[in-house]
């Protein structure tokens, strides 16, 4: 059997099928393949190389992926939002031989690292986990592990037009891209990442299938224009979907199929829930006929075992003796449902952006006037979770101005979602019996 590549998938689709729709119009499957071929012809020197794709907009990234999958040994996907330090670190980890940057169409050689031409081996796709500490790790996928749960039905796919709201260099965005390419569905690309520009693109070429975080879905409902679309497929992922957003979407799009997916970069896509209820059915646990198989550990962590898992030391370290991966997601049984309770690490998920509490505490302690800090998740009906902080001030500090000072420091040095949304001043910080900082979300 020949190796599964993006090109082999596209070759099986009708060439005249619409593929990518951008501001410049629609590009068919055949034209997309031509673009990819032209790129590959220019990139013959990178055959077998390890290539970093740095912050490419979707319209450039997708043809590059088609050109390089099965041609390069490794592809490192770096989202546009990755800062320079992190990019360098990840490129060093991956030992990249070439860099492809936005707008250049040129794979620039970065060192004299030797590499051999590939001989039909599947390309490794390296994705960075959304690092909460500024030190994201690389997870190695193959096209097969990335598309394990992607439906490949080009007949049905012809009826769908997907909108892309995520950065395609991240796991969630890549899933949308691969779903569209594998099913031969058209994919609408927004020129810019700003919300308004994205919604305008969705409306201009009316999409009928859309994937977004619950936070983004709430924003789309508040914006209201989305109601003019006839959506047939709605996917929620990236953070826990609560019952309220599922109900609100059902009320707005009663005929649509609404799916919330549990996925992580580490495990590949986990599973999809389609019954309109938060969490997933508890009878899925311990059912070994399911793929992936699911269990709950003694500590309440969700364990997952899929037939195709990504590889690497990072993954192997987290497998138990029976091959189950510890997702580090805390779950709780409630009646016939298993509900998600947040990360075991206490990591806070602000609308899909993750914040590491220890890291933020250490940052806050560095601010003049702050003696100590406790950072924890405050559940939010709008964003899943928000960052809350309890601060012990140094003696004699004037609290009102200290609060302003903390916010000012955070605003100039941190991302907006990392800045504590709620700050309270306390005389002592809560600790667990073991002397660890108490971080249960409230």
């Amino acid at each position, binding site marked *: 059997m020949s190796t599964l590549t993006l090109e082999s998938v596209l070759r099986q689709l009708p060439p005249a099928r619409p593929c990518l729709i951008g501001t410049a119009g629609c590009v068919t499957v055949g034209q997309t393949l031509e673009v990819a071929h032209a790129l590959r012809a220019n990139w013959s020197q990178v055959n077998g190389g390890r290539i970093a794709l740095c912050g490419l907009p979707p319209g450039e990234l997708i043809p590059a992926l088609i050109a390089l999958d099965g041609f390069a040994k490794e592809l490192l996907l770096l989202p546009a939002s990755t800062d320079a330090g992190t990019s360098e670190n990840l490129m060093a980890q991956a030992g990249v031989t070439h860099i492809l940057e936005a707008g250049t169409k040129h794979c620039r050689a970065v060192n004299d690292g030797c590499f051999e031409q590939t001989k039909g081996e599947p390309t490794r796709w390296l994705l960075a986990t959304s690092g909460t500490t500024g030190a994201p790790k690389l997870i190695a996928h193959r096209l097969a592990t990335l598309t394990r749960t992607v439906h490949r039905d080009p007949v049905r796919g012809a009826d769908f037009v997907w909108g892309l709201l995520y950065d395609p260099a991240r796991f969630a965005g890549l899933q949308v891209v691969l779903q569209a390419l594998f099913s031969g569905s058209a994919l609408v690309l927004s020129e810019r990442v700003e919300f308004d520009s994205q919604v305008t693109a969705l409306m201009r070429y009316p999409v009928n299938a859309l994937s977004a975080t619950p936070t983004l879905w709430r924003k789309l409902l508040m914006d209201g224009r989305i109601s003019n679309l006839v959506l047939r497929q709605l996917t929620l992922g990236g953070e826990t979907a609560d019952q309220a957003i599922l109900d609100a979407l059902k009320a707005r799009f009663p005929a649509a199929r609404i799916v919330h997916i549990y996925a992580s970069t580490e495990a590949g896509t986990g599973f999809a829930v389609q019954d309109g209820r938060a969490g997933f059915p508890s009878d899925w646990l311990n059912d070994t006929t399911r793929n992936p198989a699911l269990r709950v550990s003694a500590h309440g962590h969700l364990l997952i075992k899929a037939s195709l898992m990504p590889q690497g030391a990072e993954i192997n370290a987290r497998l138990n003796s029976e091959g189950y991966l510890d997702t580090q997601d805390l779950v709780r049984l409630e009646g016939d449902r298993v509900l998600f309770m947040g990360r075991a690490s206490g990591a806070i998920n602000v*609308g899909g952006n993750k914040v590491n509490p220890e890291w933020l505490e250490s940052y806050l302690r560095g601010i003049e006037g702050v003696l100590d800090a406790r950072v924890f998740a405050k559940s939010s009906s709008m964003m899943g979770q928000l960052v809350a902080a309890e601060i012990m001030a140094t003696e004699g500090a004037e609290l009102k101005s200290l609060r302003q000072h903390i916010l000012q420091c955070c*605003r100039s040095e941190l991302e907006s979602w990392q800045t504590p949304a709620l700050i309270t001043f306390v005389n002592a910080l809560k600790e667990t019996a073991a002397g660890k900082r108490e971080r249960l979300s409230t």
Partner: protein
Amino acid sequence: MEEKIISLMREIASESGAELNANIVRDTVLLESGLDSLGFAILIARLEEELGYDPFTMMEEPVYPQTFGELVDIYQRFAA
């Protein structure tokens, strides 16, 4: 209620360096008020601290408001 919400919106906008629309009226579209969706989430959390409830966790049929007037109505409906 309206005043309380507007004053919190001003506070959150100034903390985040955003500029709040000078004239917030019932028809003001929330996403055009100057607060982004994170600011709006912070508003709902701070209102919960002050009022003791979050109507968005209490609604039988969840609605996400588009205008300032709709937001105020939602809070008034659930005021004890």
